[in-house]
């Protein structure tokens, strides 16, 4: 600003403009994966951090949607920075790769929502059911690796034993798998489907 004859002229006025970021949302991770064996019953939880950004992020309300048969969102909403949780349930899934997406959006915001892509790989059991049951009865016919697998999915006490069989039977029940083991005993032909 100039004023002729004025002391200090010209004076300078500094005008600043800060363009604030629009309200948006980010996630601490955008993708993740894990794996399970067929007939596993280990339901587990997973989570990421929801990070609203921009004007009013501290009080921004967000909503999470997604999931399906094997993935279910356990934290469907929040305010400000928070934890988005979900549950992965491999029970009943056959071998294969499963992908599901969770979408997190700031309520009322026009920015793009954030997405988390979860991949679950269900692998074949590394031993047949019949061989596993026979292993418990005859204590033979399985490799050390298979023994380790059965124990890790059982009582995990470092030894293949009866408790591991009980765990296997429960997993098979949950997966709807029928165990049919001939008894070898005349006329009892008992097929050993659990009641």
């Amino acid at each position: 600003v100039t004023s002729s004859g004025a002391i200090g002229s010209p004076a300078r006025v500094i005008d600043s403009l800060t363009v604030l970021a629009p309200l948006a949302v980010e996630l601490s991770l955008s993708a993740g994966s894990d794996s399970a064996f067929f007939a596993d019953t280990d339901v587990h939880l997973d989570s990421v951090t929801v990070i609203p950004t921009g004007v009013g992020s501290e009080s921004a309300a967000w909503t999470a949607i997604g999931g399906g048969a094997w993935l279910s969102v356990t934290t469907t909403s929040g305010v400000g920075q928070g934890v988005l949780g979900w549950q992965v349930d491999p029970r009943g899934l056959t071998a294969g790769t499963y992908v599901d997406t969770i979408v997190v959006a700031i309520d009322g915001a026009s920015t793009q929502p954030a997405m988390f892509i979860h991949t679950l790989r269900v692998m074949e059991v590394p031993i047949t059911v019949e061989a596993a049951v026979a292993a418990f009865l005859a204590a033979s016919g399985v490799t050390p690796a298979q023994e380790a697998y059965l124990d890790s999915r059982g009582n995990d006490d470092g030894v293949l034993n009866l408790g591991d069989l009980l765990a296997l039977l429960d997993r098979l029940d949950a997966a709807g798998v029928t165990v049919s083991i001939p008894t070898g005993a005349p006329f009892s032909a008992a097929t050993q489907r659990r009641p």
Partner: protein
Amino acid sequence: VIRTDFHRGGVRRIFCALVVPSTGACGGNGTEPTGTTDPGFVRVAVTGPLSPDVAFKFRITGTQVDSVRAATGTMYFEELGPGLHRVIVVDVADRDRLVEFWVPDRNGLAEYGVNLEEVAATGTYENLSVAGYVISLGQ
């Protein structure tokens, strides 16, 4: 009087009583064996801590173990070799009758054996000590 099996024995005893009541033996020429047999089922019973719900794994030894069946619960059975059998029973409701099996003569029960190998809790899958349990055969 010679008893052979459940069905024919009764008939034969009656017959003997009517025809040869004074001899004490029954047979066409008197040379038939005079010993008695008692074919039928025997049971495996276990005693021990009442809780938790447990499953049992045990061996049965004996030359003629036939028609093994679970009285309650679910049974897994395998013949490991001549006279040696392994049984696993889960979801047991009656410990006095874990399994039953048929033998040709229950008078010879002493020739059979049963040995408890493992006990595991159905809820936690934990293998428990077998020390507190006693397994036995009976009629």
